[in-house]
């Protein structure tokens, strides 16, 4: 891949992501919205593995990966170096990871970065499980989803716990901006990245990204599946500013959760179980009420 390929795109094709990978689509939107004057610290995970196998890279921005749980701290170091060099007015710093690298193993480093007030945008690509190791449950796995470590079974509906509320955990640090987005709405992702990068200080953006392999959904329907998560109320799109809910994407006529669940094999076991369906619908209803999505 020669330098010319990166003139307009800062994340290019040729990488080895699966067909229909939602994360890869979101990365392209984020990188291009951020633009040339950006440095990226990347945690270990699917993205790092499929985009940067030596001697190739899909990134046209200065990019660094070291470990699984530390991209927030590495980004903090880059931010400090830029500050020391007097370049922080011109160069933005992004730290990015999957949901496991963010809300589970990376939580401490993220909290430190936010609490120190570092001028970094943290982007979590939320595909709701450890996909790189083969679909194990993370703290971000949704209620009743089947994963290899929360399998459905005679005594199990799948993951017994709701998603860890990372956007609220970050907002609780009273940072300038903490938001969710969905790759199903690329323009909204782009707007939120640009908005976040226009603000100085720590920012958090969590993007819902379907994983066709892990979710057992049609790889040609990634965006449709992502949209349904938003339209059912199972993935609320919200924006917090300085700890307060500032904006939400309204869903005046929410779709029933079955419409979303039936697109994915990870929820198939719920479709003929009316009680379980009611419980998942209750999660969506609670979101709609809590965030005022109607």
């Amino acid at each position: 891949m020669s330098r010319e390929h990166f003139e307009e795109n800062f994340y290019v094709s040729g990488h080895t992501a699966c067909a229909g990978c939602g994360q890869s689509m979101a990365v392209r939107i984020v990188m291009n919205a951020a633009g040339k004057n950006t440095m990226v610290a990347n945690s270990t995970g699917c993205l790092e593995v499929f985009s940067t196998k030596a001697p190739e890279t899909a990134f046209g921005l200065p990019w660094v990966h070291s470990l699984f749980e530390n991209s927030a701290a590495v980004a903090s170091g880059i931010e400090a170096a830029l500050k020391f060099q007097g370049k922080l007015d011109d160069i933005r710093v992004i730290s990015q990871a999957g949901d496991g690298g963010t809300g589970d193993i990376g939580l401490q480093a993220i909290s430190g970065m936010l609490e120190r007030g570092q001028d970094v945008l943290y982007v979590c690509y939320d595909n709701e499980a450890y996909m790189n190791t083969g679909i194990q449950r993370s703290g971000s796995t949704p209620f009743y989803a089947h994963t290899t470590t929360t399998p459905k079974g005679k005594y199990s509906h799948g993951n017994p716990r709701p998603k860890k509320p990372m956007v609220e955990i970050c907002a609780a640090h009273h940072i300038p901006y903490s938001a969710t987005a969905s790759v199903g709405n690329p323009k909204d992702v782009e707007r939120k990245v640009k908005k976040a990068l226009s603000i100085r200080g720590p920012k958090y953006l969590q993007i819902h990204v379907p994983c066709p392999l892990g979710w057992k959904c049609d790889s040609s329907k990634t965006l449709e599946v992502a949209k349904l998560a938003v339209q059912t109320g199972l993935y609320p799109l919200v924006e917090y500013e300085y700890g307060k809910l500032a904006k939400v994407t309204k869903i005046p006529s929410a779709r029933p959760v079955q419409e979303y669940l039936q697109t994915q094999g990870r929820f198939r076991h719920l479709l003929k179980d009316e009680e379980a369906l009611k419980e998942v619908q209750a999660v969506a209803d609670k979101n709609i009420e809590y965030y005022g999505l109607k």
Partner: protein
Amino acid sequence: MAEAAKLCRPGVVAAYPITPQTHIVEHLAEFVANGRLKAESLTVESEHSACSVVLGSQAAGVRSFTCTSSQGLLLMSEVVFCVSGMRLPVMMICANRAISAPINIWNDQQDSIALRDSGWIQLYAENNQEAVDMVIAGYKIGENPRIMLPVMVCVDGFILTHGMETVDMPSQEEVDAFLPAYNPPFKLDVDDPMSFGLLGDPSVYTETRYALHKTLEEVLPLIDSVGKEYKEKFGRDSIRKIEEYKTEDAETVLVAMGSVCGTIKDVVDAEREKGNKVGLLKIVSYRPFPEAEIVKALAKVPYVGVVDKDISLGAAGALYSEIKSVLGADKKISGFISGLGGRDIKLSTVRSMFTDTKKEVNPCKFVDLNKELLWDEFKV
């Protein structure tokens, strides 16, 4: 030590407090607070993040500094390996301290020894003057464009970190003249974007490790040349691979690292006055390991004893095993485990090690054991 780090003008400092390292980072924070050091000082939430921060800042092209000890070093150990693998010449002071359990804040060298295979240059200081010199010269060695490796300056916790000692502190002008500004061949740069820390599959991984190993071998002659330059500029011979103390005609030589070498030198002087032919071989550079110099220094010595402030449990002391491996099976070598968890190594302890070395070969002898604390079957 904080003063020495300051003289090297690091742009980013990140560390997490841990006894007995804490006052080093406190002093650096003071320097930043009162403007004596122009740097970003980050108060991180763990040692893992301390090392990750300096990884990031060094990758962005800024000279960086961290320091830690014991559990802190182990917590950041994952990052420690990454820093060398990514060829980032970070400087770290390790205030050597014992490892839990049982929890113990006092000195031994188990922490840095546990990370000997990490690809860092490891230098062990006998006193605070050497520690000062090693920080300044260490940056120069690690930042050599052919080397690009991190350096760990190991200083015995409390014995050195909390000891009062008069040191000759170079001036800022002298250090500036010796240590050029950090200008790495590769860094994160928006005008020349590159990717760092890629996935290395089986087709390339071995070569990266081979390159690291060969580069560490190249550090050995560099220690000589930088040490020579350091001596010319600052008048001290502290940057070297080994120090031979009265070994030429010695019958019995103890091999050791760090502050215990001072104690051993006192015993050597006293024993020499009595006509006993004893000496000390001080290992300064543990990584890279100066095999040729060690073999040469001990070639004619009939009895060799190795002092370890660490133990590879189930085997023997780490330094003992390595000295044994380079000297061969025929050589009479004893190994002593001593000074663990802050237990004093007294003059009498050193004298008994010299005596025992000559008397019988014991590969792994724990010295000064309090037998009252042991099970009966362990009392032999």
